[in-house]
């Protein structure tokens, strides 16, 4: 449940970018931060290993401003994608309001996508949340690699593997180039705020 301060008319929304390791979660946040740094006027916090991997999480908070009297604050997080950091992932998931699942479109990553999605479902259950009910957007990342001749999974296969049951909005994207990064972000914010509205009504 989002933090809603009715007295101060403030809403804090926690959105998490989840997915397999090396899928592009941090790249999504980096693009948003670098592209809109001046507008969102914030700092991105990131903790990495010596090998440039996300060790704990990335954190990008920003303020959308006052909308209809409510000050809407968005908090974007990533989780470490490596399998061994499940405790950290679970910890970061606490209090989540919306999720962007960043799937890796590379053919060799097919199994890792599926495992990461199952892992997400299990971790949400720990917080009594359902993957079918939480605001959820899927991003099929690394679509730009097709031009480099690297084998990618067809979108139909990705949808069948990851979205067959969920039937959530999905975007083909390239986080490093910025393609559909913003579209993904806008969608998850809209869905999450709508969900909060529904809960409060």
């Amino acid at each position: 449940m989002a933090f809603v301060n009715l007295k101060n008319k403030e809403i804090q929304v926690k959105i998490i970018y989840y997915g397999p390791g090396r899928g592009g979660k941090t790249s999504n946040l980096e693009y948003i931060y670098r592209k809109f740094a001046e507008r969102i006027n914030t700092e991105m916090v990131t903790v990495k290993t010596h090998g440039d991997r996300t060790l704990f999480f990335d954190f990008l908070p920003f303020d959308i401003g006052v909308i209809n009297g409510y000050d809407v604050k968005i908090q974007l997080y990533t989780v470490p994608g490596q399998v061994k950091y499940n405790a950290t992932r679970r910890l970061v998931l606490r209090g989540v309001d919306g999720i962007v699942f960043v799937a890796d479109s590379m053919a060799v990553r097919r199994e890792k996508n599926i495992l990461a999605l199952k892992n997400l479902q299990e971790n949400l259950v720990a917080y009594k949340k359902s993957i079918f009910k939480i605001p959820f957007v899927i991003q099929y990342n690394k679509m730009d690699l097709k031009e480099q001749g690297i084998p990618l999974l067809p979108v139909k296969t990705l949808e069948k593997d990851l979205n067959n049951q969920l039937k959530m909005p999905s975007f083909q994207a390239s986080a490093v180039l910025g393609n559909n990064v913003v579209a993904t972000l806008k969608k998850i914010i809209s869905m999450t705020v709508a969900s909060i509205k529904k809960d409060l009504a």
Partner: protein
Amino acid sequence: MADSKDIDTLSAELENRLDDLFSENDIPLTDAQDNNLKEYYPLSELKNLILSIDWEITDELLENLLQQLKDLQLTYEHDKIVMTFLQILSSLGNYIKSHRAQAHPKTFKILNSVFSSLDKVVLSKDMTEPEKKKILRAEMNRYKVLRAQIGKDKTAAAQHKMKTRPADTEVPEISEKKAAPIRTIDVSSQPPGADAIAELPITDPKPAAEVATLADAVEEIKRYFHTEIEALKEEIRSWRGQK
């Protein structure tokens, strides 16, 4: 309880605010920002793993390294030069997995060198095929030198074993030593690049047997040290008892 009318209006206004805030048309990335944005780098995971081996050798790390090399071989299955690099790295990875800290010290240096050259070949879009082959050939030569060095060390160790080992203990120990699993530089079963670059054949019937003997020799040295340490301990115990 929130005022639902307030929240309804909020939703509509949110769309407009997001459009204003995240409109991409009028803010191109600056050069500096472009430099900061990382392009996709297909070898990044492999680089992490190889760098990690400098810090620590664990089962998980080596499994990940070998799996990553398999993944990359699928990705680059049509690029014979890159495939050859990956096969050399796989051979070295398997060798390290079998021998861990006892692996020949130069193995790690060559592993890094081969990766560095692979990195250069993959990232340099303007590099010609002959230039790539030249780099590959240099790494193949280093690999062959290492293989020869391992064989040489093994022979020396085997000779030392023959001189020092008492005859009555040799037979059972030999039978035990034959069980030592050596699969890393078994070039005949894993010929890196033999089918890729005709002028750089590295298949050779001898190395597998040579490496097996080297492993035997290493085992022998380990036993020798173990025996010496045990004898020393016994001597200390005896000395303490007398005191």
